């Protein structure tokens, strides 16, 4: 990599960056769909499985109902915490991502090890103009989630450029 590219990359991305607030909306919609499915299954089991109405089953039903309440709280509170904590940084050497709701993760991927970069968009993200960037190494995939499409494309372009200049440097 020449000095100029390296300096630009460093200058542009020295600090951690945050996600767009739209990520919360995407998560709320996804969570809403998942919760609706889980709730429907729970209610169907409650109404149509005869053993679920027997007195002996009440502790299990109570536990399941408590689980449903906890899941609802997680789905309501989670996106805000996720948004507040999510940070990512791309320098000339590494991709650095910090995120998590209950369990916090710090992911470090040396650019040297990146094999492939791709942009992926699910239906909800597509609707909101968001995308994920999947960074594939020989040891697994790291993802930067809920980026605006332009930002995702820029990151892919920048990573591809960094990888190519690194490969050119090796030659």
């Amino acid at each position: 990599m020449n000095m100029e590219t390296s300096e630009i990359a460093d200058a542009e991305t020295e600090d951690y960056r945050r996600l767009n607030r739209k990520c919360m909306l995407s998560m709320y919609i996804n969570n809403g769909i998942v919760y609706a499915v889980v709730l429907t299954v729970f209610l169907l089991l409650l109404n149509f499985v005869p053993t679920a109405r027997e007195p002996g089953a009440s502790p299990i039903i109570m536990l399941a109902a408590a689980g449903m309440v906890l899941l609802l709280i997680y789905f309501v509170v989670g996106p805000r915490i996720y948004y507040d904590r999510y940070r990512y940084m791309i320098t000339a050497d590494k991709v650095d991502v910090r995120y998590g709701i209950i369990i916090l993760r710090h992911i470090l991927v040396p650019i040297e090890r990146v094999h492939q970069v791709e942009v992926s968009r699910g239906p909800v993200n597509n609707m909101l103009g968001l995308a994920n960037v999947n960074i594939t190494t020989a040891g697994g995939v790291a993802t930067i989630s809920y980026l605006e499409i332009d930002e995702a494309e820029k990151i892919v372009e920048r990573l591809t450029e960094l990888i190519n200049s690194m490969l050119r440097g090796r030659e």
Partner: protein
Amino acid sequence: MSEQGLRLHPIIIVENTIRTAIALLIIIFFTAGESLDMLIIAGLAAAALVVLLVFYYRQWKLTFVRFGETDIVVERKTLFKLKKTIPYSRIASVNLNRGVLNRLSGTSKLLVNINSGYNAIKPEASLTFEQHFADRLRNDISRHVYSDEMPSFEEVEQVVRFTTMDVILHGLFSVPTQQSIIGAFFLLNSIVEQYRVAVGEVDAGPGGVLISLLMFFIFLALPAIRHMIYYYGFKVHRQGDTIFLEHGLIRTYKTSFRISRINAIRVKNTLFSRLLRRSSIEAEVVGIGSDDGSGNTRPLISLLASDTTTQSLLQELVPEFIYERQTEKQPAGARRVLVVKGIVASAAIIAAMAYPSLLAYRGLSGEGSGIVGALLPYALPIVTALVVLAIAYSVSVSLRVREVDTGEELFTFVNGILDREMVIMSYDRVQMVHVVRGPLARHFDVSSAKVFMLSSTGTSSISSGLFSEERLERIGDIVMERAAAMKH
């Protein structure tokens, strides 16, 4: 050799036909079952056999291999054309396998693997030739790949000679401890049941003893026998920068790989092998796939051997993975996290088992006679107490065993409760580092790390115990520093 190249040995027509025919017969048997009469099934099988023979004959006739100066080219000119070029520079290992059919026909299978996470467990090319010709080809390819010839194990002086007893001990004691305990339980149960039948205490039931014996075979005997057959006649040798392995009773394996292809070394022992003071050594190598599925396993470079032998083997075979270690045990914060987790898990289990235990006590009181009858009502509380004890044991062992060490070029994680392993890894092979902190770990200021690297099965991740965040973040920092140093 014609201009088009070499044809493989025609035995592959028979081998492929048998393999596909068996798969087809299984499918026909399970899908059609009793709805077809035997005559139709026999007719279908005969027709399938003819079609398969013609298909594989044509595939054999139109498949050619060329061994060039710089690469191997495998070309298939059938309807689905294929031309695969494997440069010698990309080859990670070149191995020989001999199955039963190969032995009967005097052939060997030459397996060529490249260093790739994709398709890691299968060889890039599996080429069957006459045995002597395959040996010669392997030597030729070896000269291209390793600049070295294959050693003859009869001529070289081996660091350690593994005896048949070593193979048997390895087979018996390398089975994971939990699996061994379950297997031993079923064996004991079958003996007790047989005794009760013999003394007339109970009637011979419909297969109670047999089911226990079957479970014993599945959990313990079969894996042990499989290991014994697979590692029979185990030989290991290092020549230059290449490690050569040879083993196998029914199918023989001749494997070789360069030291530079090793991503990590694992020194492993199970609870029972530890009692015998024996450990084995595995190498995490990419590109040693075999089409019989053994590519799913990491190559062993030492069977279970005494701890002193293991140390000398590490010194002789992989000195690149030896360094002055300054290990660190888990800090006080980790102790608190593990104890709190243990208490919460125990409380949850006790709470979950309280009501069923009460029901079991009411239902089983007065049932049975003797010791069994007296213990039966308390079976669930006893099981719960055993689980809680197991949790306490795992917490205490985890505190004692788990270690981390970050050297200059290598780093080490020591893990395990019953089965333990010490993984020595090279920073230069790390693909990705995750540092993870749960709510409890955050409260007590500790983290765990997960290191991702290429492995013989594609990818693998190795987790650490709970240590200070700075200590674990240092792994990622050193990976970055070394990558930057290499770049410049």
